[in-house]
């Protein structure tokens, strides 16, 4: 354990936390762009009504 710690310790890993932070932020921006695009509005409109009917499935069955 100690030797692994030495090796990893010498490699200056803590900077990678910042890299991960940036990657996460980019991934988040991607979701943001996708969700906000107007293309899916009607789809979300329907999805949002899901809780209101307990008995009939909301997604149409027959293509």
């Amino acid at each position, binding site marked *: *354990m100690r030797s*692994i*710690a*030495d090796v*990893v*310790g010498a490699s200056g*890993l*803590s900077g*990678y*936390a*910042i890299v*991960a*932070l940036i990657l*996460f932020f980019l*991934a*988040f921006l991607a*979701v*943001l*762009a*996708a*969700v*906000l*695009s107007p*293309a*899916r*509005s*009607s*789809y*979300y*409109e*329907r*999805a*949002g*009504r*899901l*809780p*209101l009917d*307990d*008995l*009939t*499935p*909301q*997604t*149409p*069955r*027959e*293509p």
Partner: protein
Amino acid sequence: MNARLDSFSYDDAIVRKFLFATIIFGLVGMLVGLIIAVQLAYPAANFGPIFAFGRLRPLHTNAVVFAFAGNAWFCGAYYATQRLLKTRMWSDKLSNFHFWGWQAIIVAAAITLPLGYTQAKEYAELEWPIDVAILIVWVAFAVNYFVTLTKRRERHIYVAIWFFIASIITVAVLHIFNNLAIPVGPLKSYSIYAGVQDAFMQWWYGHNAVAFFLTTPFLGLMYYFLPKAADRPVFSYKLSILHFWSLVFLYIWAGPHHLHYTALPDWASTLGMVFSVMLIAPSWGGMINGLLTLRGAWHKVVEEPVLKFFVLAVTAYGMSTFEGPVLSIKTVNGLAHYTDWIIAHVHTGALGWNGFLTFGMIYWLAPRLFQAPLFSKKLAETHFWVSTFGILLYVASIYSAGITQGLMWRAFDETGRLQFPDFIETTMRLMPMYWVRVAGGTLYLAGTVIFIYNIVMTWKRRPAAYDVPVVTAAPLDLSTPEPHAPAGTGVYARFVGLGWHRRWEGMPLFFSVMVLVAVAVASLFEIIPTFLIKSNVPTIASVKPYTPLELAGRDLYIREGCFNCHSQMIRPFRFETERYGDYSKPGESVYDHPFLWGSRRIGPDLAREGGKYPALWHVRHMENPRSISPKSIMPSYPFLLTNRTDFDGIQKRVDAMAMLGVPYGDAINHANQMARDQAALVAADIEKNGGPAGLADKEITALVAYLERLGTDIRQPAATAAAPAATAAATTPAPLKAGGN
């Protein structure tokens, strides 16, 4: 295409069971909360070992978090999930196993915590056999849940369920990693982590337990029950998806904000701060989304108590998610940490957000589950106002208590000395506010009693047999493409068409794995460097393991829950070093399994208690703190002067520590004898100074030996302390001789 129709019914019996568990344990948890609030204002209300603050406080937190909020989450989730997926839970047996298993765990907690069995980690106090039971029950819940998802008859998985899935997965990960410990007895274990690492794991857990037990599941409930009660869809479904992903992406990173200015590496706490501040955006997005769902329906809020509860709950969510990031800013945290401010923050969330959302949900559910009109809308209305007023009193008084005490701790007079050097002065100033809190808590509890009466009376009006409606729906054929699939080609069109996202949504397992990856990656990036980078925890040559007797004393400190009132972490501020001594170094807690830094200073920090007073002082103080400090609110521990030390059990504990890598040297072979030898010395010193005789085999001696050791190693020159630490007789007299420093 599919001519077959399934007939099925929803399992509401399980929902009713969880509903009753919620109200029963809500009452118990709040009652214990009220008792400990009284104990802080009136210390005579501590009774014996069992009903003392240090043991009851974890009972209160565990009861309200895991028993009240937990059962509320399950109650709502079983109701909503079946209806959103248009299917019954996959296995009634597993649902019931989840229910009875969870209640058994709660009962086990209610018995073991007052008896002093604790891991000393906040919200993870339960000892290892109970932790194993939690894991088993959780796996049963998860299996039942995920199989139910695959049996669904609705293609899209509504956002509330995403929140439930993420919560189920993340809670499992948190629970497993924070509770890794090696058992040393049927109800005793030592954390495999020590010092800084243990603190880091604990607050990674503690913070995310708040996130994934008290926030995301309740957001799931909000996104289902608020539209239900308002009878209109959520204001913006898009916003709710954003809300979900940003919480999953950001929340995990924020944990280190609990450890600002401690021995935690600076980069880690800065990261925690940045992510915490970023959390404001999605949280407020969610709050606004909730409130705007009611647009055009505000007249209903006036008439409908259910909506009133929801509006206050969502507002409280907004307030506490604004305050959280503010508290994570280092300078604000420097003032607020260790004070009642944090307690006020938590109660805005717990009483307002979790409590009121639960009340609203149950008022809405009761008539439907019991198939009878609510007993009294007027009483529900009364409940709302009584409890709201209770929250206001609680929060206002405890905020002012926190800020008052924080400011008093750091006040210097014109000569540059601490203005309030006597800690108890800063406590006495809070007494009026502590009484107002008792009043606020009483009102909130009174509201809860009204609530329970109302629900029970509604239940009494139930029909002789519940009507179980049969639902018919076609099974879902996931192999056929979804109708209205997005048009358009090209990378961008396909990307924004969200085909990928919907495909994930169609594959709950894959979706869950993605959540797990996000959580795991964030956690690893946070945690690994702390564990592996040596420079993060510089070792200090003179810091040695506790002697066997001190280790036994430390276990008593844990058993009595002293860490609920005392921190052991002096921050690098002048007002702290003036009061307590040199600030705490990471290297000083490398043998602390578990760490005992604490999170609240109801009493003074003890990190450098060693050598501050003679042993006899501690004996008298522990026997009755008010004999020394007349206004003290610390409980009395006279039983420590009569309980015998379990010398025979010490060897096993030392061995366990040695197994975790603590360099115990000689003590591995004769811990028992070493402990007896040291105890004889301590007892002789007490007697010589005029104290009671015959304490050598009593618990008080072990505890005093531990207190006298605290924070002294760093003052020893490395050379003299280089002798094997465990040669008790050689190393301990130093602090014992010191009557002050």
